[in-house]
């Protein structure tokens, strides 16, 4: 009887300890980061209200080898050089609702789901990006892809899908900061559509 009680309390204790989990993972396989430097323990955890990783894991700097990751100044110069002249497009890969609410100035909405391999109409979509016959990318637009921020997997997945569809990596750019960093820096945004 005592043994049963002990076992029961043990299980309850296990369940209760679960309640005190606070931090979210930094990446899929890394809950935290700890290292010992000069005899001192260094520990980095992540506490992000309302998020969980996956899916909101921190993305690396390089999305796909060959695709340049850019910052805000490069985005501005992209708008000036490519978008204004009609050679480039800024792609917001979030949902249409998020795009409507707030987005980068001059951005167009191409939700990540439409670029995925599972979309049977992807080839038609690529033709709207000036890809001829689904495989000729010589006239295709230069694309700058962004999403919520550095912890959004959407933009990275969209870049991967585009490269997988045959888009030349040299025509793609990944703005890792996303709308989050753009707003933090105080840069002005626009309503989508």
């Amino acid at each position, binding site marked *: 009887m005592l043994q049963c009680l002990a076992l029961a309390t043990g299980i309850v204790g296990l369940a209760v300890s679960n309640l005190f989990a606070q931090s979210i993972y930094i990446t899929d396989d890394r809950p935290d980061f700890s290292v010992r430097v000069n005899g001192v323990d260094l520990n980095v955890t992540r506490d992000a209200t309302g998020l969980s990783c996956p899916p909101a894991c921190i993305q690396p700097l390089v999305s796909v080898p060959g695709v340049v990751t850019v910052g805000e100044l490069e985005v501005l110069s992209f708008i000036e050089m490519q978008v204004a002249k*009609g050679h480039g497009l800024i792609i917001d890969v979030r949902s249409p609702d998020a795009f409507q609410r707030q987005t980068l100035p001059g951005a167009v909405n191409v939700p990540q789901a439409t670029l995925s391999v599972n979309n049977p109409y992807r080839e038609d979509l690529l033709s709207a990006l000036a890809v001829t016959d689904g495989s000729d990318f010589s006239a295709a637009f230069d694309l700058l892809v962004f999403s919520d921020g550095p912890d959004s997997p*959407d933009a990275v997945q969209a870049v991967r899908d585009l490269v997988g569809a045959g888009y030349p990596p040299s025509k793609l750019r990944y703005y890792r900061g996303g709308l989050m960093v753009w707003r933090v820096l105080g840069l002005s945004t626009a309503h989508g559509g």
Partner: protein
Amino acid sequence: MIRMVLYAVGFISVTLLLILFQPGSRPTIFKDEFSNVAQTTQGPETSNMRVGEGAAQDAAVKPLIERAVQEALLTVVQSKLSPIAGQGLQADPLSNVPVDEEVTLLPKELVVGSAQRGRSEQLDLDDRALRQLTWETMSSLNVATGKSKAPGEPGSLLATIVRRSMGGTGLPSGEGDAQDSGIYVVQPGDSLISISMAIYGNVEMIGALFNANNDHIADPDSLKVGQTLVLPDR
């Protein structure tokens, strides 16, 4: 004695089941009708933990706990969000960082920001919704790239419809009810989108094309080679 054992076994098995399959802990998206913001819910462990924390985090925390409280508080949070990022030094969760004039701390609304983030991969899209989404995306892309005119501008479909309804363009109406201007035979590799682009030069006519051929096309994806499609007027 046997009763104690049975109770213990039952209790332990239920607890283990709950630990293994934590209902409600998978992030789910639901729309808030007031503000059209997609929100995520968190598992029981995180929401329980947050109750004990400081007041500064309450506005961020409560929406995750109860939906009713959520909606009420969302209006409060929203009213605080109207000043754009840059008014950084309000009550922020990073309170253990020494406040320094030169350091701009993350404004609270951006840490809360998960409620504002649109996560498109969580959209549950079936084939029809995905098709609709692709068409709309293509339409907006074509307008953005100048391939087709924005609605209302001369040359756009809307402008044509308005002109027609005002009796502007005298279209031939003496060819029976169909009012069609031709027939198209489906070739291998055609889809409604490619046919629409080839004949009309835009994707807005897909709907009209499908409607005009509703009697022999059940589904926009089921075009067969050799089928004849009635081409409606622009």
